[in-house]
């Protein structure tokens, strides 16, 4: 029987891995992940209006040109990949004619006694909102500067006004550090990204088990299989093979992500272009330094094992539930109906992660993070962001272990009856009867 268990597990796993749609699907997913990580480079490569030079011609009737020019040069800070060229012009009529069939912008600055200056914004066609807002913000900034200059404020004072406030972060608790605070923010964002593949893997897991059990059941091949191996062997071979598959798939997703980051690193460092500069905002090295300085890396020694145990037990619970539900249904359509609540439950955690950023320290969210099936997404995120401690995660793990135990003990009884049941009449009655049987 042990050999048959190994055979069934290996058979089921290889069947999934050798499936051409698995290979095609993964090739597509790999391309998408690598592409998404490098999406800005890809967009930049193909070009478009966004990286055209922004030519701003200014006709100044006020005498504030220098201040206005200095401020308008900051427009590029708001744009993705464009260079801003500001030029002083004279003839309004001529300049307006020159605008025909171009993306250039003409700003006519006029005196305004009540508002320092007013601006006529001229272009041949529509201007995108980001560009318009950037110019508007810079003109407002120029106006403030001019207004303060006109108020005879000392240049040193003026410099102080425009200088950002220095904040010195102090903690009463000596164990707390600014790096740790930053690291927690980084990790809470990172955990939201990690949760998405987990959600994807849960969908894979439940779909696969359901499809396999239903295929064997609907073809009556199940009678031959269960005639030769016990339902217990069959059940656990399905659970093990599906979980192994999910682990392999998860590892492959990580590899695709790593490849994407390597490509990003290589393309950013090998190029001095404006796009590369713009896309180098996400500096992995800096993030790692922050994490290292914060001391969080030292805590990963127990955080990572806790999260791994939580993930493994959660995947086990989802797969056990999927196997049990699949055994009760007689076709894939019915299974999909039964599987929907599982999917919704797995989504709750994700929404609560978002809510946790709006309601820091919420007792309700902390309590929910202990609930099995939801804890897989919520607890790691809250743990990494420091909302909950290891104790709550251990409670979540214990509750999950209890759920797994109950699912194995009673679910197996349902599975034994369910896989050879082809009728939906009195289905739930039959299942409850199966649970009660010794």
């Amino acid at each position, binding site marked *: *029987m042990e*050999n*048959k268990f190994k*055979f069934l597990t290996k*058979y089921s796993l290889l069947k999934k891995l050798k499936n051409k749609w698995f290979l095609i699907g993964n090739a597509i997913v790999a391309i998408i992940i690598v592409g998404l990580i490098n999406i800005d480079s890809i967009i930049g490569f193909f070009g478009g209006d966004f990286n055209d030079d922004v030519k701003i011609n200014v006709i100044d009737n006020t005498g504030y040109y220098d201040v206005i020019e200095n401020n308008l040069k900051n427009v590029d800070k708001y744009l993705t990949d464009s260079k801003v060229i500001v030029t002083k012009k004279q003839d309004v009529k001529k300049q307006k004619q020159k605008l025909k069939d171009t993306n250039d912008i003409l700003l006519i600055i006029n005196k305004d006694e009540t508002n320092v200056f007013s601006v006529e914004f001229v272009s041949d066609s529509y201007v995108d909102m980001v560009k318009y807002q950037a110019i508007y913000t810079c003109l407002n900034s120029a106006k403030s500067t001019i207004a303060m200059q006109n108020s005879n404020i000392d240049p040193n004072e003026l410099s102080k006004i425009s200088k950002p406030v220095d904040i010195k972060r102090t903690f009463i608790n000596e164990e707390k550090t600014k790096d740790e605070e930053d690291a927690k923010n980084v990790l809470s964002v990172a955990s939201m990204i990690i949760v998405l593949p987990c959600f994807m893997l849960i969908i894979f897991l439940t779909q696969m088990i359901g499809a396999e059990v239903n*295929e*064997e059941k609907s*073809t*009556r*091949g*199940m*009678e*031959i*299989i*269960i*005639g*030769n*191996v*016990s339902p217990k062997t069959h059940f656990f071979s399905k659970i093990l093979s599906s979980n192994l598959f999910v682990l392999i798939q998860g590892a492959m997703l990580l590899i695709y992500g790593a490849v994407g980051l390597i490509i990003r690193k290589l393309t950013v460092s090998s190029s001095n272009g404006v796009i590369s500069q713009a896309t180098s905002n996400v500096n992995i090295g800096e993030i790692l330094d922050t994490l290292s300085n914060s001391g969080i890396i030292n805590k990963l020694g127990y955080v990572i094992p806790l999260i791994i145990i939580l993930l493994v037990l959660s995947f086990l619970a989802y797969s056990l539930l999927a196997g049990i539900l699949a055994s009760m249904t007689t076709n894939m359509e019915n299974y999909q109906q039964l599987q929907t609540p599982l999917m919704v439950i797995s989504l709750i955690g994700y929404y609560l992660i978002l809510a946790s950023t709006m309601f820091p320290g919420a007792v309700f969210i902390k309590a929910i993070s202990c609930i099995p099936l939801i804890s897989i997404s919520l607890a790691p995120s809250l743990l990494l962001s420091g909302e909950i401690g290891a104790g709550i995660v251990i409670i979540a793990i214990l509750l999950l272990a209890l759920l797994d135990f109950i699912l194995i003990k009673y679910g197996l009884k349902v599975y034994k009856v369910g896989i*050879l049941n082809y009728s939906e009449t*009195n289905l739930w009655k039959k299942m409850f009867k199966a649970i009660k049987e010794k």
Partner: protein
Amino acid sequence: MLKVENVTKYYGDFKAVDNLSFDVDSGEIFGLLGVNGAGKTTTFRMIMNLIEPNSGKITFNNKKIDYNLTDKIGFLTEERSLLTKLTVKEQMLFYGALKSLDEDTILRRLDKLLKRFEISEYKDRKINTLSKGNQQKVQFISAIINEPKLLILDEPFSGLDPINIELFKSVILELKQKGTSIIFSSHRMDHVELFCEKLVILVKGKSVLEGYLKDIKKDYKIKKIIIEGDVVKKDLEKIEGVISVLKTACSYEVNIRDESYSKNVFEYVKTRNNVTKYVMEEPSLEEIFVAKVGEAYGK
């Protein structure tokens, strides 16, 4: 030897099999007959250990059938039990491995059986691309690839043309020669009659007739006389002991209560002209089946 002793199975309040007993020796072909819902498939499922009887026991060679024994059993289900997305070869490797066979043995036996069933060219074809008859052949091969000691065949001839039925019959008889105990169900009584030494007729899960076929026929008192000649149906019906008279295309079939009434019919026939045939035959299994099932349903 397969031994089914006083087996009863309930589905809720419904009694599917009622105190059923029979045994099948090695090299014996046993027929399990009954109308739809009589309890045949439930009996097969209990023999295969797929479901537990509520009472009674089932043994093979004096051992309770469990997963240590199922490697020696072959099972052909009434409905297709093939994983139709697989090729014939993949299917056999899968089911063969479940019977604890190694890959070489499976492939060796598969080649031999595919040749025997004249479908060698379909070895690498997906099952869902095969005709119904060829799928039935593949399913039959999957049931015997482990060279079983006990073979359970639930409606084995379903979907087969007469030529392939003959092919199946010859393979089943070869297995019998090799000492395999074979138990099978069929709605076709002519098939059962050709094969089975022993049978049981089930009605509502209960045995209404059981034993060796020759004894059943011998003990069945109603006999049939075939007459060809200038006889009158109404005259025949008036004879004492005659139950019914059926006029066929060129003869009359006269059912009599028992053999002793044949002389009354013969006395009448002697007085008629152009009589070319007068034969007393044993009833067919189908007639016995219809009569017994009819009796059980009070018809």
